[in-house]
């Protein structure tokens, strides 16, 4: 699967409270959640983002609350992929579970600026910064994390197990 879009760049420790503030957690509707995505860290984000765009951040992206509403809001805001130096572990799990592509790469995260055009090849394990003409490799997922992505998320993996 090839992913291509404009980068929206953020710093370290982007927490799930700023990705989707708790005042909007009185619903599970993906469209309503997406309508407030990144609201407390970047009020311009929703107006600027186009379908297929990519969020790029520093270390520990998605720290804090376990709210799955955070990756849901990002996915349904049309973001195709999140690239970060590192991810907080619950967000990482949640993203894999719901099928939001994520890439952990300190080099790629550091080598992409806000507004850069970025192309990602998940199978080949490459991130290309088309604006700067640079390329970064990333390690493939292993173990259950890989099974999850191949199955298309946790629900699909569980159904496979239940059918056995």
């Amino acid at each position: 699967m090839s992913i291509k879009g404009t980068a929206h760049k953020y710093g370290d420790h982007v927490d799930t409270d700023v990705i989707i503030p708790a005042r909007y957690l009185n619903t599970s509707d993906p469209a309503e959640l997406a309508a407030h995505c990144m609201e407390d860290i970047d009020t311009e984000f929703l107006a600027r983002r186009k379908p297929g765009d990519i969020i790029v951040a520093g270390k520990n992206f998605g720290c804090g609350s376990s709210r799955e509403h955070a990756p849901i809001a990002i996915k349904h805001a049309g973001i195709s992929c999140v690239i970060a130096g590192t991810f907080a572990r619950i967000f990482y799990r949640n993203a894999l579970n719901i099928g939001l592509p994520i890439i952990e790469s300190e080099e790629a995260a550091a080598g992409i600026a806000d507004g850069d055009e970025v192309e990602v090849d998940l199978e080949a394990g490459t991130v290309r910064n088309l604006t700067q003409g640079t390329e970064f490799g990333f390690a493939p997922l292993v173990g259950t994390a890989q099974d999850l992505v191949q199955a298309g998320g946790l629900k699909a993996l569980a159904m496979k197990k239940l059918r056995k």
Partner: protein
Amino acid sequence: MTITEKLLARAAGLDQVTPGQFVTCKLDLVLANDITAPLAIEAFSALGVAEVFDRDKIALVADHSTPNKDIKSAMQTKLMRGFARSNEITHYYEACGGGIEHIILPDKGLVLPGDVVIGADSHTCTYGALGAFSTGVGSTDAGVAMALGECWFRVPESIKFVYSGRLGKWVTGKDLILYTIGRIGVDGARYRAMEFCGPVIEALPMADRFTICNMAIEAGGKSGIIDPDQKALDWVSPRAHRRFEPLHSDPDAEYAQVHEWNAENIEPQVSFPHLPENARPLSEVGEIVIDQSVIGACTNGRLEDLQAAAEVLKGHKVAPGMRCIIIPGSHQIHLEATRSGLVETFLQAGCLVSTPTCGPCLGGHMGILAAGERAIATTNRNFVGRMGHTDSEVYLAGPYVAAASAIAGKICGPDDI
């Protein structure tokens, strides 16, 4: 092996595991709350199974928006309540007999030493204080676990934290964990199990141990854990309704890191906005005027925390204009605080006493901050906008400091009153 490795190995039916290994574990309890359960129920329903794996091993707790703050929240809770009824979930809690999930689950004996537990709430790591492996997950993990009764994990490396010496006056478990997060950072234990030990931990009451493990996630930890010693077993035994088998770390267990700190050098701590790692000793806080003090939450809403706050507040009045909001962690704690006169002490001092709720901790309700306002809180997070407006500020502290600050109208300790 460490206690964490042993717990995961046993629940996976293996003799041994090593960090980095992927395992699938049988679960002793699956938790969700009024915010995370609706999505978990959606995931569960999508699987098309006839019933939950074990109606006695699921806990559904309404606590975040409780009592429901608006119509949408009421609908979310109604959905969870309906699911609990139709699936005959044994442990459904709301209002009377309920309270904040991470306070009532241990209090009711639903988590025991030796258990492996997941919860769709990041502070599920609290139960490590009982010698259980417990970790926060998202709703889909919880929903699928309600069907399968199992969950996959990557076995974490462990970091050992050894606290020697003795705690100073007014220094609590909260101060130890804020100090710890201040030393290693909010991702200092990312993906790892934090094992807390040493003479200071051994001497700590259970309430403080819960507070410490509660905030393991604020250092990025997958879990926090404390050896289930005699004190823990004595606390658990009258509450337990089933058999349990504690496990302990081997003397030769391997740790990714070991930190050794002398508690004599640790003052009461205050974490500045907007990360829990911004911990400073009280003597270096300076002049911080506050509008609100919140005493409660899954971090510090236990009876011992309320007793600490009352010890400081007794005979004093909160500063003019101050909103000091006291939130007992459960209905039972509220009752005990009323019986023992704590509630009257709080009301006499000019505090507000709320029914149990997570409320202001996550900026939900019951004490939201306006732009430019500052709160001191015994809660666990001080991210941007956490308690309200993005231009408000939250300072984290223990109950002694939060109570003293309410009286002074600025951040200070009990000795400054």
